[in-house]
């Protein structure tokens, strides 16, 4: 499919059970607006998260992905182009077309 204007393709993977919140599909290629409409700032990971919640999260138990304040639930690991997001500035990390973001829910059962 052709990309929508003023958007960029971002590869998003959900692992460790998070895929069940997103139509049971571990892999999505989404069209993310280049700018965050709320303040016209360039799209970063924080904006990606709110975009995912608004457009792709199809499950009543949203608390498994985000807090009520919109921040990512603790215990979810984020890798941006294979690097730990803590090293990339977490939600502030700017995104570019083609970036690969992986969300992994930590497991504790045995």
């Amino acid at each position, binding site marked *: 499919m052709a990309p929508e204007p003023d958007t960029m393709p971002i590869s998003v993977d959900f692992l*460790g059970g998070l*895929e069940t919140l997103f139509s049971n599909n*571990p892999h999505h290629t989404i069209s993310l607006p280049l700018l965050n409409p709320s303040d016209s700032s360039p799209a970063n990971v924080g904006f990606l998260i709110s975009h995912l919640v608004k457009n792709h999260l199809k499950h009543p138990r949203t*608390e498994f992905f985000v807090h009520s304040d919109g921040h990512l*639930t*603790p215990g979810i690991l984020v890798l941006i182009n294979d690097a730990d997001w*803590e090293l990339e500035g977490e939600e502030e990390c700017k995104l570019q077309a083609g970036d690969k973001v992986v969300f992994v829910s*930590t*497991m504790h059962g*045995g």
Partner: protein
Amino acid sequence: QNGTSRRLTDEEFDRYSRQMIVPEMGKEAQLRLINSKVLFIGAGGLGCPAAQYVAGAGVGTIGIIDSDVVEPSNLHRQVGHATSRIGMKKVDSLITHLRDLNPLPTYVPYTFPLSPENAADIISQYDLILDCTDNPATRYLISDVCVLLCKPLVSAASIQKSGQLIVLNCPPTPQGKLDKKYPPCYRCCFRKPPPANTQLSCGEAGIMGPVVGLMGVAQAGEAVKILASGLHLPSSTPETPEDDPHNLIQPTLLIYSYDLNAAPGPFTFRALKMAPRKKNCFACGENSPQTLTLEGIRSGNPNYVQFCGIQTAKTTL
């Protein structure tokens, strides 16, 4: 390693010959296994298969700690137990099974829970720790004590249709050492636990037997390779991650995703590269000797139960 030059007994040779002839194994690696001590924390869905293969491989001393008893709902996945041993302590049930599989190792049962008070005393007696437990509070406790006692840790977890595995603190590196890149601890990778209302146990959320079983066997595979190859020994010349051929300093987090509606596909196994030891890590980072000590842990600091936001660690699976 003392004892890696003795002869194998006929019985040892009979039992271990099929793995000793594998390239890069051999008699010395077998003797390293025989001279090693491994602790399994948890005798459930991960601990059962992991212990079967570690015992089979001939690791000389096998400690197992778990306070639970065998229940019928365990048996679809906890394949080291049996219907005839329902009601028995899981540790005793599993050792019964393991002793018939291989009578040569020394088996050490601990039929009480791992706690901040007893963790260091027990963990200090082993060369390698397998985290086969089922709750975040115990996972953070195990990792913290492993950092302080310089023990490598093979950590696995599983729930519903997913599993994860990572080798941590290997080669073991003293707390606070950061002059080069060193391997991460559990807290480096998983800084904060999930909130209590999103923590699900296998009892509440369910678990597919072959999923947790696969993670347990994979844990045994990592344990056997670490001990046989001496990867747990402190390295005199640690590599930088750029040229680390061992994947130890930046270990991969292995994720298994089991899909009931599909055969294996490109997402079935993912290997995610983790960062090395983090400067700001509470347990192993720059200032960690001030924030985390064995004394502190023993006297309730940090408070693991509070940190994980639950009243009591869930131990029923």
